[in-house]
């Protein structure tokens, strides 16, 4: 019909229908258009449509057919046409009697516009030579008549229902069983190198025993570079839309996933009124979960469907057989392996509005920044991998509990074994340690590798973790037994003076363990193993420092030396953290930044002891110190500790302002430390008891002030630091004033506590009355 409405034509058509309905006879079209012969053709078209419509309405819409009805049946050479049995996307289907072989077959007349990927005759020869059709689940093609216009395919006749029609009324287990059969048949074809490329429910027939038969095999098959844009839009895989992407067996797996999705939810994942709508939806790639559409859809089947439908072929089942195995697991009541990435991406996309909402609340000052941070952190946890390791895990299963308990016991046991060998000489030789430590190490890593490749990452990570400590302990024993890098007892400059382990041995083994755990962390992408790496890096620093005289520093109370030597490690951590962030290896970032902060804080505090920090800068407050104070560096230490508090606060603020999101976690740790380090100098002053007793009371007052001041700060760490220091102050006062045997001291504290409680009550009542 032309786009412009022709009123004259419509008037005449209305007259036709009227006459037909009122008199029950069909008026002559020629007479209706006697004055306008040009309208004869369009009017006839309208009348045809009207008659078809009346017929369609008569038979009910639901099985309405767009095919032109009536007319004579086509004839085929060598066959007698019995009846038309259907119309598929590819064309009309007829039931024929094969006169030569006396059997009943089906003939599919291709639609003239139907594209065929390559000569079907070639395909037929190939398929026969490879015995494709020996699989009874694949509908056999007998003959292809390419010379006919349009071309005709003579094939096995299947009596039954299309999966698309009968599928929704099947039980879940029946649906799964049908799909297992389909997967197996497809696998059979794939093994022969033949792909289907146009799998859809209407291409799968079910006979009375519900065993499937796959139609139209080979009609779209071809070389890997072909097969794009062929097929029914709903079942097209993303790679079929990209002419540059190769098409392989996994393209059929995708269609199998869509078929299962459709069985579960009664609708296709990517719907749309026109093919371009469907393709746009497919490119957006966020279908609804089947369970949202049909609450009874079981999660395991949903997971299987979504896994098969993964947009990236490498994320899908790699073969129809893998999918069939997972379906069998469901049927056997065992857990399925499928973990579709869509679960994570769906959660992520649905979380985004929530996170945006948090920003909005923060902007409106409805919540404090630290509250916003805590909410964001809760969402980040949801985003995190579910099965990494126990610390990052959202849920704890018994398997995880057992795995990590096992790993813990293994580490503890290996340490005991090492002690028995090295310190108690209860084990001799290298053979027994080899079986006790090295064999489990190799076994755990081999098993971990295998499990990791089979997507059992949680177990694999636990195995790797358990194995990490075995390697250095065995190496230490082995070095000792073979006399490698041994330092005799009494050698100066050794960390362990007894000669049990030499510095070099320590350095080599820890370096090995660092390399090993670093490589594992890179491969498994888990925070668990990168945390181990961060800890091992610290141990390596200690082992290296032992060559610089670590033992003498500890013995000689030269903590400043240790602090100065260990400080570069903070830089190393921070540098590694930044590098990991740049290279987008986020699982390394957290442990490294936290390590940097901890080393930084520890180094500065150790440096402050004995007033060394000021000494290095060349400043001393010693002249200000009272003559009767026995510790000559007391004021300098206090000054350095006070300075540290300021430095920590400045560093935390700077990181918070300029740092990345990952650095902010480190800043948060620093902010938590700040109030503790602010009270530290007074605690030190008070504890040494060199000055006036008044310092004890000042300390207490300041601690209480910090408790109250927490009201203005947004960090509860002030409150906790204040309370803890109040406790310490009370203890110091009691100890210096000898109050321990004075009940009055205790009673007055109880009294003050009661007064505070009363004040709290009064404040609350006042607020309530307002």
């Amino acid at each position, binding site marked *: *019909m032309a*786009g412009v409405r022709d009123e004259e034509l*419509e008037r005449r*058509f*209305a007259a036709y*229908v*009227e006459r*037909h*309905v*009122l008199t029950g006879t069909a008026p002559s079209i020629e007479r209706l258009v006697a004055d306008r012969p040009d309208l004869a053709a369009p009017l006839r*078209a*309208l009348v045809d*449509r*009207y008659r078809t*419509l*009346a017929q*369609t*309405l*008569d*038979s*009910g*819409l*639901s*099985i*309405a*057919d*767009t095919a032109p009805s009536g007319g004579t049946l086509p004839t085929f050479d060598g066959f007698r046409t019995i009846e038309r049995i259907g119309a598929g996307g590819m064309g009309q289907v007829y039931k024929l009697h094969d006169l030569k072989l006396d059997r009943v077959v089906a003939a599919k007349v291709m639609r003239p516009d139907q594209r065929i990927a390559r000569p079907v005759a070639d395909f037929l020869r190939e398929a026969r030579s490879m015995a494709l059709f020996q699989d009874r689940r694949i509908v056999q093609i007998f003959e292809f008549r390419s010379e006919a216009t349009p071309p005709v395919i003579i094939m096995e006749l299947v009596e039954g*229902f299309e999966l*698309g*029609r*009968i599928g*929704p*009324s*099947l*039980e*879940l287990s*029946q649906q799964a069983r049908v799909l297992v059969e389909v997967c197996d048949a497809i696998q059979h074809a794939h093994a022969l190198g033949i792909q289907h490329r146009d799998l859809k429910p209407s291409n799968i027939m079910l006979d009375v025993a519900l065993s499937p038969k796959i139609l139209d095999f080979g009609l779209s098959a071809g070389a890997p570079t072909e097969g794009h844009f062929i097929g029914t839009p709903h079942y097209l895989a993303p790679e079929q839309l990209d002419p540059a992407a190769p098409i392989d067996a996994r393209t059929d797996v995708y269609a199998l996933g869509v078929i299962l999705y459709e069985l579960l939810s*009664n*609708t296709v994942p990517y719907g749309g009124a026109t093919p371009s709508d469907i393709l746009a939806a497919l490119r957006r790639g966020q279908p609804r979960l089947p369970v949202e559409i*049909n*609450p*009874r859809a079981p999660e395991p089947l949903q997971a299987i469907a979504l896994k098969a439908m993964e947009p990236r072929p490498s994320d899908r089942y790699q073969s129809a057989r893998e999918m069939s195995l997972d379906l069998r697991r469901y049927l056997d009541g065992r857990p399925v392996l499928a973990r579709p990435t869509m679960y994570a991406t769906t959660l992520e996309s649905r979380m985004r509005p929530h996170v945006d909402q948090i920003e909005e609340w923060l902007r409106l000052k409805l919540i404090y920044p630290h509250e916003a941070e805590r909410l964001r952190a809760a969402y980040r946890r949801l985003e995190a991998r579910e099965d990494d390791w126990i610390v990052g895990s959202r849920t704890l299963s018994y398997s995880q509990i057992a795995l990590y308990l096992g790993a813990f016991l293994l580490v503890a046991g290996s340490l005991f074994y090492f002690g028995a060998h090295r310190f108690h000489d209860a084990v001799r030789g290298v053979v027994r340690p080899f079986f006790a430590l090295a064999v489990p190490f190799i076994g755990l890593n081999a098993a971990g590798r295998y499990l990791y490749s089979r997507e059992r990452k949680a177990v694999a990570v636990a195995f790797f973790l358990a194995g990490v400590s075995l390697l250095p302990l065995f190496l230490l024993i082995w070095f000792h037994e073979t006399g490698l890098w041994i330092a005799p007892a009494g050698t100066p400059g050794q960390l362990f003076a007894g000669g049990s382990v030499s510095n070099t041995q320590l350095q080599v083994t820890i370096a090995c363990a660092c390399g090993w755990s670093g490589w594992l962390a890179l491969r498994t992408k888990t925070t668990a193993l990168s945390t181990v790496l961060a800890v091992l890096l610290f141990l390596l620093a200690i082992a290296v420092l032992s060559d610089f005289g670590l033992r003498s520093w500890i013995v000689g109370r030269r903590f400043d030396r240790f602090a100065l030597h260990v400080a570069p490690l903070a830089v190393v951590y921070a540098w590694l953290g930044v590098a990991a962030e740049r290279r987008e290896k986020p699982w390394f970032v957290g442990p490294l930044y936290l390590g940097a902060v901890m080393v930084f804080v520890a180094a500065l505090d150790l440096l402050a002891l004995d007033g060394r920090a000021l000494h290095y800068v060349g400043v001393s407050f010693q002249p200000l110190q009272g003559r009767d104070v026995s510790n000559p560096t007391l004021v300098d230490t206090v000054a350095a500790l006070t300075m540290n508090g300021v430095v920590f606060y400045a560093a935390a603020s700077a990181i918070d302002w300029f740092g990345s999101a990952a650095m902010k976690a480190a800043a948060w740790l620093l902010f938590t430390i700040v109030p503790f380090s602010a009270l530290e100098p007074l605690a030190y002053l008070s504890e040494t008891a060199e000055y006036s007793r008044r310092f004890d009371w000042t300390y207490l007052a300041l601690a209480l002030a910090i408790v109250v001041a927490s009201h203005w700060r947004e960090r509860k760490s002030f409150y906790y630091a204040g309370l803890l220091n109040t406790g310490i102050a009370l203890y110091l006062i009691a100890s210096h004033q000898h109050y321990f045997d004075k009940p009055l001291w205790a009673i007055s504290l109880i009294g003050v506590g009661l007064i505070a409680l009363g004040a709290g009550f009064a404040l609350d009542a006042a607020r309530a009355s307002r």
Partner: protein
Amino acid sequence: MSRDETATLVDRARDGSQTALDVLYARCAAKLLPLIRQRLGPSLRSDLESRDILQAVLMKSFERRAQFHGAQAGSWMAWLARIADNEIRDRADYRTRLRRDAARRVPLDEAADVPAPVRSALSQTILGEAAERLERALDSLSDAHREVILLRQFEELTFPEIAARLGKSEDACRMAYARGMTALTLKMSEPT
């Protein structure tokens, strides 16, 4: 399928023909589903619910099929349509009282005692693309035109019966039907 064919099938089914019963249910389900969807109207119809109602109506009619007395009672389809109307009304009442109750819906494959003819009719009845197009075209008609088409084509009433039902003259009903069919055909001829 005309009313006469339906009546013949009903008679043969009553005489005990299993085939006739199967064919009858397959055919009436194909007509009943679009009818139910039209009665629900565009805002209420959802695929799950309309299939649900279809199942309920088929089940009820199957249980009570002895109560249908052939020629005296009029059209078999009209009888089904009345059951469907009641079912829709019940559900609408139920929904306003209690909102939606998932437990009330008996899912297809959990209802173990679905008789074979009903089960196979349900499994064969789906809304094709053409059916959806026709549904949209029907939606776009005026209420009077749509109603007369539903009564004539889906409930399989005669024009005298339609006239009695609508309280109009028989000729007026015929005219309304002709206009409705004209409009429907033109609508279906528009390019999509």
